[in-house]
């Protein structure tokens, strides 16, 4: 995938790698499902254009070098009237004995002047989406726009599927749109002093704060993560007096925190819920290829367990799932949403997107197909020379990505440690040119004078020298040592240097003691009638080039 930055917009990254703490290991590099990380000069970097905000890197970093850049809780003090818009996932975080209403009240305790029950808006948005599907039976499937990371993924990698997105405002936007005006009317607040804070489970919301999907400018002022408010809420829950009822939703809205909550709500045939980057990509690939079948609704999440499994949550996702299951049972699945009112609002355009979505497709390798194809060929050629150990030491997640980065000028092929060191050995092995002494002898018609026990040794190169001191200093192990020296020390030095075999040139034969030593040590001594130069030529032709 071409990782070159889109010059039109630099996206805001919620996850940043601290270069002081990062030790340049390969954990996040290999874990990133979007292959969006590179390690350069010993420090990991996230490529913004490829990053999908799944936060897996943050979860796996052994050095704790990845920091979250969502707002700190004290930011609420910037506003006289801070308002909380919490994702439904927040309710799953505080165990079996805390109700959503208590969580909402706790938010008020920690400083928010007003709190919105976003899960109620989820129910409404669910109805609106369903109405859209019923009005557009040809849409197969309609894709939920709720997960912002999935929407961005579609604009980048599957722009042809943008028309599948259901153009209904997500709950956070619906909650915050016009909220300042509403509160101004209700309480007499100056809208300029109202700050709307979304409290979310994942890094993706920071990006949409600055680059919204369906509105021109976000109605939110800041994004907090669930981890940030967790501690203060726990404290506030201890002495909470439940004197107000804020929560309005039923189990229908509360179940949106789980994977499949939206799909459950859709009363259409054949709904689907998918989660996790790799699986979502697979589903979208299938859809793009027209192979998803008769699906009417697709709920997709980047986080592998739905929203409650987001990397910026606190509770274990499976425990959170149990909490939601309990909440759904307690609150039942009878929604209070007035479908008639929703229909009316739809007609009034309340749920409409305020701007159309723009594709930002990942670029091809070059602007013209001919050049792009030439680059693809160059990538393929380089990839074939790589050792495919997928070790990550070059700073790329795998060998294929490394080949792409090199051809695109983002890496040097000398970055590949393995390629450099094993240039001789590995390349020869993969090309199938590594041969045994026996094969070489047969191929070149060389007689075997001694050391037949070593004929199955692998020959990896050649070395010509008649000065033993030189051979001792420089001959590589596994080489065929070509020499005209026949005395006994030849065998000893051959053993010392672990050569594959010795070949005597010019028709010479080993001295008896040399042959005896070679037999003892299983170092084959081959005989060639040719001079060293001619023999070298034949060895090169046989594939034993250096």
């Amino acid at each position, binding site marked *: 995938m071409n990782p070159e930055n889109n010059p039109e917009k630099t996206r805001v990254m919620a996850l940043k790698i601290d270069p002081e703490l990062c030790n340049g290991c390969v954990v996040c590099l290999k874990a990133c499902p979007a292959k969006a990380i590179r390690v350069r000069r010993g420090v990991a970097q996230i490529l913004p254009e490829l990053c999908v905000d799944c936060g897996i890197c943050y979860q796996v970093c052994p050095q704790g070098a990845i920091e979250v850049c969502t707002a700190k809780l004290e930011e609420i003090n910037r506003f006289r009237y801070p308002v909380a818009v919490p994702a439904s996932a927040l309710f799953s975080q505080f165990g079996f004995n805390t109700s959503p209403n208590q969580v909402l009240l706790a938010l008020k305790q920690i400083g928010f002047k007003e709190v919105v029950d976003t899960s109620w808006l989820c129910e409404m948005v669910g109805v609106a989406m369903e109405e859209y599907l019923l009005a557009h039976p040809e849409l197969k499937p309609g894709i939920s726009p709720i997960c912002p990371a999935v929407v961005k993924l579609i604009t980048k990698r599957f722009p042809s599927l943008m028309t599948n997105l259901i153009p209904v405002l997500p709950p956070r936007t619906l909650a915050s749109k016009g909220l300042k005006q509403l509160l101004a009317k209700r309480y007499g607040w100056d809208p300029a002093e109202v700050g709307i804070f979304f409290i979310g489970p994942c890094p993706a919301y920071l990006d949409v704060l600055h680059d919204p999907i369906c509105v021109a400018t976000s109605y939110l002022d800041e994004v907090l993560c669930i981890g940030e408010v967790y501690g203060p809420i726990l404290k506030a829950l201890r002495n909470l007096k439940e004197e107000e009822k804020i929560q309005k939703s039923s189990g229908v809205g509360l179940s949106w925190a789980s994977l499949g909550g939206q799909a459950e709500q859709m009363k259409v045939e054949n709904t689907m819920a998918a989660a996790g980057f790799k699986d979502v990509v697979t589903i979208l690939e299938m859809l793009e290829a027209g192979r998803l079948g008769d699906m009417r609704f697709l709920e997709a999440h980047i986080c592998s367990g739905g929203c409650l499994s987001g990397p910026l949550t606190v509770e274990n996702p499976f425990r959170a799932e149990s909490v939601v299951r309990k909440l759904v049972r307690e609150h039942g699945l009878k929604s209070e949403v007035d479908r008639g009112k929703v229909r009316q609002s739809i007609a009034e355009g309340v749920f409409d997107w305020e701007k159309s979505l723009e594709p930002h497709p990942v670029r091809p390798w070059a602007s013209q197909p001919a050049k792009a194809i030439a680059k693809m060929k160059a990538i393929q050629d380089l990839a074939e020379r790589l050792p495919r150990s997928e070790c990550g030491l070059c700073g790329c997640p795998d060998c294929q990505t490394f080949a792409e980065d090199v051809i695109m000028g983002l890496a040097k092929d000398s970055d590949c440690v393995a390629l450099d060191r094993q240039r001789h050995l590995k390349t020869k092995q993969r090309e199938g040119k590594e041969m045994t002494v026996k094969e070489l002898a047969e191929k070149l018609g060389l007689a075997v004078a001694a050391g037949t026990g070593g004929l199955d040794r692998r020959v990896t190169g050649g070395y010509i020298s008649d*000065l033993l*001191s030189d051979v*001792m*200093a420089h001959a590589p192990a596994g080489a065929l040592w070509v020499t005209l020296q*026949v*005395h006994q*020390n030849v065998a000893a030095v051959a053993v010392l240097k672990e050569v594959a075999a010795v070949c005597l040139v010019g028709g010479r034969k080993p001295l008896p003691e040399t042959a005896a030593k070679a037999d003892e040590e299983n170092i084959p001594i081959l005989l060639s009638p040719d001079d060293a130069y001619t023999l070298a030529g034949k060895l090169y032709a046989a594939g034993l080039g250096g």
Partner: protein
Amino acid sequence: MHTCLSPCGGYDVTPAAVVGRAAELGLALIAITDHNSAENVAAARKAARRLKQAPPHVLAGLEVTSAEEVHLLTLFEDLADTLTFQAMVYDHLQPGQNDPELFGDQIVANADDEVEYLNNRLLIGATDLSVGEVAARVHDLGGLVIAAHLDRPSYSLIGQLGLIPPELDIDGVEVSPLADPRNAEQWLSGRELPVTASSDAHDLAQIGRAWTELALKKPDLAELRLALTGKEGRGVLGWGKRKEAAG
């Protein structure tokens, strides 16, 4: 001849044993020339001093391997000069450790046949000194340089270089027991050089299988020099060979 210090030298070729055997055979003048080292010379001389009957005069020396892998016998009288030359050789010897399994233990022994220590240098290896450099340095120290086993195809001037370089200042050549010293002319490259014959013994049985007969006033280096140059009545009289002793 060699002792147990040389790679490929056996354990029984101790300095004392060598000297004792030489005495048995009536050899008057011997040189202990281990490969690239002279560390057994002192023990040999001490052992010789202990002999009651006909102790041979032991010349100090080393068989140096030049950069061209030519063996040169370097002979000295003074042990101090020898050790100075040895230090130079060690400085120029190719780096590396001896592999006892391949080349045997390189034993420095005392006159009582006890192992003092093992020499770990790569004595089988070559120095980076050319034949000319070796000759020059030996002469500076007052020693003699003799091209070893000229007739052998390996490790000899003829074997490695094909000829005796015209400008090479050596004091003589040696032929191995395999060759007839009377036919040495074929290897002399037209030079007029005195010819010696030696056993190049690497074990006790080989000692005395070849020798040179010299006319000397007494057996020492100064006399040998005169004999090789044929001055003042000293000279090379002839050579002798003998079958190797049994066992």
